[in-house]
């Protein structure tokens, strides 16, 4: 057993994303010596995401966080939009209460948000090292993780616990053997454009004012490639993106740029972004398959949190990850600090981390929605339901007098046949959906 005080730090956190910074805050608050290592020139510099965070978890870590967090807009409208070739069906919920403390969700730029969060970690006493990439794990004879190797000369650092928060495709978790073989179908590609419009135009088009914002998730509209889309409002930009299933994308030989262009031209989307100028285009891989692909979270001397632990929910109707990352990071930081204090950093000593996860929304949400990613991304939902749902609604709402309207049930039956959906499938999917979403 190595002597803790001979180590460079008690806890090394790899990656100053939302997970890493929260882990560092939690561990530093508990009085541990923490080094937070980030490969970018500053935290968040290279990180991308859709644009909405649900940071309520910060209530515990950064009291009154909303007063200092670099937020673009507070989300007061959330809606889910189902798109067929030309039609659209939206379910829209609005609450002005979300626009007041303690707030619900917010849109924010990652370089701003991540950097702010890392400053909270530094304020709590963690030491932040940037422009430094972790290239491997140090282990002792027993195979226990005792530190990290970085790309700098003289770059080994030892610690009692390493918290891997290095994001999706975590190479540390893989090196520690925590992942089973990865299957490309568990990943999706996120592609996003940042579109600039003056603030008042955004306010008008989305029916908001001041610092109110909107979060729209989209099912369909991805040119037949399975996936979903999103539209979020920032102060004077709109984030618009698609999330695409990797194997499908490859099989259909479509370029992500084309898919995003088609979505932008959709009659339901085009008016929202008309006249906007593309400021940025970026792409990033997301772990998509939810609970079913999570790695083992804990090993001797190391825990995994955030995207590195596949704690991301990105299933078309939700795109959440930052909140899970922050929560899991916090749990990891606390558990690591406690384990160091107890002088037992074995997998068993770190096990309270998993318990904590289970007790919070993090794993509960993931379990509940276990099958949802599969459902939302299935061919059925992706390629037939949108057309089906929108044409049912279209026919119900259509006013074509003087013919008597067929009953809703007949419309559903006719449309279901036209879309080629079996009744049994419809029922099964409905059930899975209800269980997940309800």
């Amino acid at each position, binding site marked *: 057993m190595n002597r803790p005080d001979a180590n460079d730090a008690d806890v090394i956190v790899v990656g100053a994303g939302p997970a890493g910074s929260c882990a560092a805050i939690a561990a530093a608050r508990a009085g541990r010596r923490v080094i937070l290592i980030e490969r970018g020139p500053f935290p968040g510099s290279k990180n991308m995401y859709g644009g909405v965070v649900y940071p309520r978890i910060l209530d515990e870590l950064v009291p009154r966080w909303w007063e200092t967090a670099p937020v673009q807009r507070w989300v007061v409208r959330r809606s889910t939009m189902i798109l067929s*070739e*030309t039609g659209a069906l939206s379910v829209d919920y609005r609450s002005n209460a979300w626009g007041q403390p303690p707030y619900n969700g917010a849109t924010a730029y990652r370089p701003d948000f991540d950097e702010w969060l890392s400053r909270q970690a530094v304020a709590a006493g963690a030491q932040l090292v940037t422009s430094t990439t972790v290239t491997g794990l140090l282990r002792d004879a027993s195979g226990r993780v005792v530190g990290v190797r970085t790309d700098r000369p003289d770059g080994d650092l030892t610690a009692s616990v390493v918290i891997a928060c290095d994001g999706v495709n975590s190479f540390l978790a893989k090196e520690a053997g925590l992942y089973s073989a990865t299957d490309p179908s568990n990943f999706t590609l996120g592609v996003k454009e940042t579109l600039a*419009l003056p603030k008042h135009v955004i306010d008008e088009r989305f029916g908001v004012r001041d610092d109110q914002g909107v979060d729209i998730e989209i099912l369909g509209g991805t040119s037949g490639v399975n996936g979903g889309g999103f539209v979020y409002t920032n102060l004077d930009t709109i984030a618009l993106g698609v999330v695409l299933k990797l194997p499908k994308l490859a099989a259909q030989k479509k370029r992500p740029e084309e898919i995003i262009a088609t979505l932008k*031209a*959709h*009659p339901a989307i085009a008016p929202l972004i*008309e*006249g906007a*100028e*593309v400021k940025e285009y970026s792409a990033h891989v997301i772990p998509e398959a939810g609970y079913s692909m999570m790695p083992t979270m804990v090993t001797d001397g190391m825990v995994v949190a955030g995207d590195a632990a596949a704690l991301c929910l990105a299933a078309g109707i939700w795109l959440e990850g930052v909140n899970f990352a922050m929560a899991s990071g916090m749990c990891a930081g606390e558990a690591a600090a406690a384990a160091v204090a107890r002088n037992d950093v074995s997998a068993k000593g770190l096990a309270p981390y998993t318990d904590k996860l289970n007790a919070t929304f993090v794993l509960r949400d993931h379990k509940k929605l276990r099958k949802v990613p599969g459902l939302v991304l299935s061919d059925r939902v992706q390629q037939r339901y949108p057309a089906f749902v929108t044409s049912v609604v279209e026919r119900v709402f259509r006013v074509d007098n003087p013919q008597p309207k067929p009953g809703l049930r007949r419309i559903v039956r006719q449309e279901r046949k036209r879309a080629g959906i079996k009744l049994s499938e419809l029922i099964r999917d409905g059930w899975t959906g209800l269980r997940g979403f309800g």
Partner: protein
Amino acid sequence: MAYKYLWTPLQLGPVATRNRIVFSAHLTNFAREGLPTEQHAAYYAARAAGGAGLIITEEHSTHPTDWPYEKLIHGFHRDVIPGYKRITDAVHRHRVPIFAQINHNGGQASSMFSRLPVWAPSPVADPLFREVPKAVTHAEIDEIVAGYATVAEHCAEGGFDGIELQCSHSSIVRGFLSPATNKRTDEYGGSLANRARLLLEIVAAVRGVIGNRLALGVRLCGDELIENGSTIEEAVEVSRLVEASGHVDYINTSIGVATASLFMIEASMHIPPGYALFIPSAIRKAVDLPVVGVGRFKDPLQAERALAEGHCDLVGVVRGQIADPDFAAKARAGATDEIRLCLSCNQECVGRMGLNRWLGCIENPRTGREHEWAVTDHVALTAKPKDVMVVGAGPAGLQAAIAAARRGHRVTVYEKENVAGGQVRWAASVPNRAEFGDMIRNQLNECRRLGVAIEFGTGVWPGLVEEKRPDHVIVATGAEPQRPWWVSDPDADESARRVVDVRAILDGSAPLGGPQSGDSVVVVDEIGFHHATSVAELLADRGCAVEIATPGMVVGQDLGITLDMENWWIRASAKGIVQSTDLVPMGFANGELTLLHHPTGANQTRRPDWVVLAVPPSPVEWLYNDLKSLGVSVERVGDCVAPRRAHAAVVDGERAGSSI
């Protein structure tokens, strides 16, 4: 190369442009009964959506005495305002500013439509309209000034962000500025200050009504290119006066006058890019106002260079955006390769203006038809994708393939040669006409983007169709040269082997390598377009003594329409090409060509070393006929229906491809 200036914003008085690309003013013939139409709105909106930084509409007439062509917008009627609103609303939706160009054409007009005498500074007849105008009195000058103010008011009410005064190529203001047309002895004639008086009065009056809410620009001509006309030195002086007025926010530039030197305004591919850049450059040295440079800008890098070298602050890209409304957006996104490059052929944009038809583009069937496409655009994908076979990779076949693939069909093009292009390849292979070949490059790019497969070196015959079993076949096999009746049979008369088609010269298949230096050649022009003239140039360059004989009144009649005629004359005379007209070929035998001079009925003869034929070709229709009789679902497009020109090929192809 990174763009440093093209995408930077610029302030023109109260108006900000988001980049430096201007869709400068040009006639469209979209107006009906003097009013703007839905066609205008959709046309301008498409360029706004495509990323233009600023749009300037075609001219609006400021006075009833000004009606030189039928489809002019009568800005002086209040009735135009709803139409203005429609245009400005459509453009503003894309957050692009739009200015109105207002104008009185002065003496460069006729009384044909208005039945009123045309007004000008002095009774000097315009060389094109050949009508003596009425010299305006001071009261009439006041009426002109008031007319500008009224129209400016209409424009402001109609939602325009600015006004541009066209004082450049066809305008009463130009008439006053130019010593060639202003012979007055009162305070409006003589010194430059006097000649510019009307301009400054109009500027002040217009600023008076629009206040500071709208931008005001003046478009000036940098060299009229007519004898005794104004040149760059005077243009620079006028810009100084304009700037000193304190009322003007920018200066636009132009070259030539619309009636005598129009071919220099809308320069065809024979005139080098950047030819008019010396004008904004000289003006910009003299004034601090932003200056627009215009004239054959077709590539974003070329535009960037003009900005970087300080020749102008904004770049007018007119035909570049007629051909591709998304010019700016594609360039901005770094997809330069996807821009449908304008050919500077003038065939369907400028060319149709003179014919009193609405503006179009040879390679873009949607140009001028935006109002029809807007409705159907998004729903274009087909529910039942078909396998489509296209035969022939000329413009007709490629366009059919593009249109079908855009609808979601699976398309394969078969071309018997190893390259695409059909006759366009030959049309582009002559001096100074390479840009015509860009049409095929553009089409091939689009094919690649849409996933169209092209099988080169595969001639189609009915057996291949049976083997491939496509759901639908589009035949675009083009046209082939034909021997006219008046040439003797080369098997019987050896001299007739020296009678060859233009294509044989271009593809090198003429016997003995074709005409060589020192040979005498008669080119027979029965088509009246570039075929004869360009081959004549090629042969003259090669050292041949060339004569063109045509039954028409002039050689290459339709070059007038594309504004290539004047240049052709200059080059032809420099190259010593003889042009003989009103001659109908009556026979060729034993080395002798007989030509009938039809106004007199006299026969003439020639004994040239070679006769080169630019005569109507015949359609290649056997494949279509065979497939039709086999009951295959087949259609034909382009020259194989009836030999015409490239635009007809593109339009045919688009129609056939999009209706599957």
